[in-house]
């Protein structure tokens, strides 16, 4: 018996529809669970007070500050480094064996899992350079970890700047550097910003690389050499050690909301760029 191919076509279409919406369903279940279970425990005190009794009571303010410090400082280091690399790769060289090696390095860095960044940061920054579990060790580790994302998105953004813009700039006798800073980077800025936002999202949610470099002290990191705890690490410890489910849900809500917000901003910027160039 031969089945009508058009019938198969309909079945397949139905199946693919179902699978796609199943996948979206997973996202909805994740976000909805966290919102419904976390929302009742969120209040002013939870956000703006310190944890007490290992996190059973009180809030998460130090870990919010810890997260912001870690992420901002890492971005501050990784952005110039990453954008500089992207500019070098696109504007200052032709494709050669040398750029291939650098690209290989960037791809390899991107593929290394976060636990190995944690292992490296622990042995290099924490132990060999004697930083101890500190904000500084965390910042340096996260900087290296997010660098490939920033390089790749900046490179894409810079490549998509029309060649004519550069030619006009050169014809006005601008130097290469003037062209880069006054023409290329401003046009590529939204794309670069998208990469930066995505990196922020990744750094906010990171646990494995942070817990072994920045440690998990519950106090405020008052200096670069102090240990501290990010929201993700705090959430991990609350959930895994079963300290407090309520606080774990509430922490995860703030964690996930901040990541969603960052991602939505990134997507919004990216869409504006796409509609601008097409």
């Amino acid at each position, binding site marked *: 018996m031969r089945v009508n191919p058009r019938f198969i076509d309909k079945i397949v279409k139905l199946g693919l529809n179902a699978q796609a919406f199943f996948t979206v369903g997973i996202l909805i279940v994740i976000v909805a669970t966290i919102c419904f279970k976390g929302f009742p425990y969120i209040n002013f005190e939870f956000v703006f007070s310190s944890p007490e009794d290992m996190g059973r009571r009180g809030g998460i303010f130090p870990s919010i500050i810890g997260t912001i410090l870690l992420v901002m400082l890492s971005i501050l280091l990784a952005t110039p480094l990453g954008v500089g690399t992207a*500019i070098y790769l696109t504007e200052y060289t032709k494709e050669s064996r040398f750029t291939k090696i650098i690209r290989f390095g960037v791809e390899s860095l991107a593929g290394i*899992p976060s636990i190995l960044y944690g292992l490296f940061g622990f042995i290099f920054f924490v132990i060999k350079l004697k930083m101890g579990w500190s904000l500084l060790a965390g910042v340096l580790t996260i900087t290296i970890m997010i660098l490939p994302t920033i390089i790749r998105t900046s490179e894409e953004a810079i490549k998509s700047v029309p060649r004519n813009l550069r030619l006009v700039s050169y014809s006005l006798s601008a130097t290469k550097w003037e062209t880069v800073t006054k023409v290329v980077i401003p046009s590529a800025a939204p794309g670069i910003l998208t990469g930066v936002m995505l990196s922020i999202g990744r750094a906010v949610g990171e*646990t494995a690389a942070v817990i072994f470099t920045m440690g998990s002290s519950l106090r405020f990191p008052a200096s670069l050499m102090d240990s501290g705890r990010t929201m993700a690490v705090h959430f991990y410890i609350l959930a895994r050690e079963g300290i407090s489910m309520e606080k774990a849900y509430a922490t995860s809500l703030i964690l996930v909301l901040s990541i969603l917000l960052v991602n939505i901003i990134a997507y919004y910027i990216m869409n504006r760029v796409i509609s601008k160039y097409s």
Partner: protein
Amino acid sequence: MIKKYRFNKEHLVRAILTVFALSSLLFLFLIFIFILFEGLPLFLKIGLNKIILGFKWAPTKDSFGIFPMVVSSFLVTFGALVIGAPLGLSCAIYLSEYSGKKTKMFLKPALELLAGIPSVVYGFLGVIYIVPLVRNYLGGSGFSLLSTSIVLGVMILPTIISISFDAIVSVPKTYREGSFAMGATKWQTIYKVIIPSAKSGILASFILGMGRAIGETMAVIMIAGNALKIPTSILDPLRTLTGNIALELAYATGDHRLSLFSTGVVLLVIIMILNYIANFGIKRKVLK
């Protein structure tokens, strides 16, 4: 004067940017050196065989066998692929071939958001939903190979979807038109023309997904149960290479700590092989 100043500045900029570009290589080099430097001595002292093929992990009593963890890491990765690959590929096909513009505008960012959810959150939700489900309906403690594979399968979806989507979209439109012109239905076109043409990209997406699954840590230690033996059924708990490092690094000293770096070396080698295949091995085939 001015000309000379500009000339120098351009050179300075070029030099600085070259240093920036080299920094990625330097970081990669440092990561390799320091993990190898800590991890290799134990291989020399105890023996490669006794570590990689050793069954007993008792690092405080000089037994550093990580064979069960190597096997477990591959098992969860394979499990994740069994769940994530068909689902991810069908999502990619749906996105590129079936969905309208409006659905796409909503679906793509939603799928990208899945990639943004932190792994600890995946682990936590796995403990809340998947673990009890497995325990109640299939038995065992629920902390198992099956639960871990399901959660990892979902976690690698965004990687598989975005890379295989790019591969499918880049199949020339004329291929599709040619197939339709011969009277093929949409599914026949997808099955016999599009998927074979996009094969290498789809394969690369699976391998990068594997890389992500084998390197995943926090979600795995929350769900896998972390038992020190080779699982004999999908309901048995297990401990992966990543889990081994994360669980013990905080308090390990001496040879015990070195043995965790040896675990890291094994993981690093596996990851580099997978990345190399995905980035170079497969793309080369396309060029031919």
